[in-house]
């Protein structure tokens, strides 16, 4: 009993210490962003990262969005047809995708696809002493390695989310209009009436936070992994799980905050 208590206590204090280290790491990264922008040779490191993160993730993110759109439409169409609301299909699909499913699913895909690759890359650099080599040459690994990767994640997650959204709405259209015979005009007309700039802003701003979380968590895990191939593998798994959970938790709180802001400015509004 006592040993169980002390074990739990030790575990909790380890967790709190790790949490503190993560925030210190994040703070140092954010603090380096502005000085980083003033050096041409540093900024040149951003483009290859954007390329690595963006180009390679585009297909998976688009496929995700497309199939989510299809499935949403299939689930909703019969109910709406039975109640004579089939014209509003676009509203259901586009609001769900743009506000919630697009950013969350794109974020989760990227946490696996990009986060895993970043942790593996930096973790390998860590265990093969490349991070020490950087320090030995008087360079700051956070400035050289983390800042460009972090910024690439922050910039590209929203962009990829938009692609995911577009494909989702298109998937919904494909089921509703050609397959179930909803009027094309009605689909787009109700969609554009219901979907406000605010919804797009909400989705995209979530994606900015998700991108920041993916970048920081995966780089942190890579920088702090244990020795050996096993250490790198474990860091990748932990990075993905932490990233995934952070995205879901952040989504909840950001949604609450956005609802609060919306209601206090425009009041409550129905979409149908």
């Amino acid at each position: 009993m006592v040993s169980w208590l002390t074990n739990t206590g030790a575990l909790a204090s380890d967790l709190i210490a790790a949490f503190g280290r993560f925030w210190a790491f994040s703070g140092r990264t954010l603090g380096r962003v502005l000085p980083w922008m003033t050096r041409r040779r540093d900024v040149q490191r951003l483009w290859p990262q954007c390329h690595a993160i963006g180009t390679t993730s585009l297909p998976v993110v688009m496929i995700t969005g497309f199939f989510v759109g299809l499935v949403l439409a299939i689930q909703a169409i019969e109910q709406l047809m039975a109640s004579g609301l089939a014209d509003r299909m676009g509203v259901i699909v586009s609001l769900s995708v743009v506000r919630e499913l697009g950013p969350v699913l794109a974020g989760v895909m990227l946490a696996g696809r990009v986060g895993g690759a970043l942790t593996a890359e930096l973790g390998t650099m860590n265990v093969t002493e490349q991070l020490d080599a950087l320090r030995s040459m008087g360079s700051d690994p956070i400035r050289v390695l983390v800042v460009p990767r972090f910024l690439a994640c922050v910039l590209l997650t929203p962009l990829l989310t938009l692609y995911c959204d577009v494909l989702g709405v298109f998937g919904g259209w494909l089921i509703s209009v050609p397959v179930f015979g909803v009027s094309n005009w009605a689909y787009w007309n109700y969609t554009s009436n219901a979907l406000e700039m605010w919804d797009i802003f909400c989705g995209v701003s979530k994606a900015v936070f998700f991108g920041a979380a993916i970048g920081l968590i995966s780089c942190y895990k890579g920088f702090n992994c244990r020795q050996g191939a096993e250490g790198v593998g474990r860091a990748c798994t932990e990075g993905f799980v932490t990233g995934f959970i952070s995205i879901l938790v952040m989504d909840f709180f950001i949604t609450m905050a956005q609802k609060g802001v919306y209601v206090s400015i425009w009041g409550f509004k129905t979409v149908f």
Partner: protein
Amino acid sequence: MNENHDIIVELRNVHKRFGPLKVLQGVDLKLQRGRTTVVIGESGTGKSVLIKHMMGLLRPDSGEIYVESERIDHLREKELVKVRQRFGYLFQMSALFDSMTTGQNIAFPLLEHTDYNDREIERIVAEKLELVGLNGSQDKMPAELSGGQRKRVALARAIAMNPQIVLYDEPTTGLDPIRADTINDLIIKLKHEIKVTSVVVTHDMASAFKVADRILMLHEGKFIAEGAAEDFRRSTEPRVRRFVNGQSTPDEA
């Protein structure tokens, strides 16, 4: 010249442990300017840990470290940048950046800390590669090189900025005897031509005897023997004799 001026790096009673594992247990060391100090010792006694302390890559748990009479063990990373520019560090496993070509690896510190234009950087890269006997391999990726070639590229990178002090972690391990001897000659040449102060960690006694002005033996976290190459050849201390002659005791077999 007074004696203090001659000491370029000094360690005073340095202790370092990793969790329960005590690695350094009271190390005292003075490096003389322009001389080559060789550190020998069994695998795992903390030779790499020791030289990492000299440039602040690791921090001691207790004890003091001075570089050019400036205490460095409590400096922050940012303040260490200036100190580290005096050093070149050849890592035991080379630690080349594997996403960059050989040439980009060597150019890296130059791009980070100097304003040289591309032509000048290319020239320096070619010159350093020639020094280590690898001319023309600027565009190879580290993965395409053999272990010994990687080590020589890493050496070229370590001396790219013409450091005053070079720390060599096993510079000849994994090289054939002829290449190993070129590296020995290079260490000696850097000492004579640009007055480099060197620390060489090695298991290779032939190399140790050839380059050393002074040899130190690290054992269980402390220096147990110190002297010129001759002293080590003639030493009667059993642990030194066994290391120098490469004999194992029955309980190590």
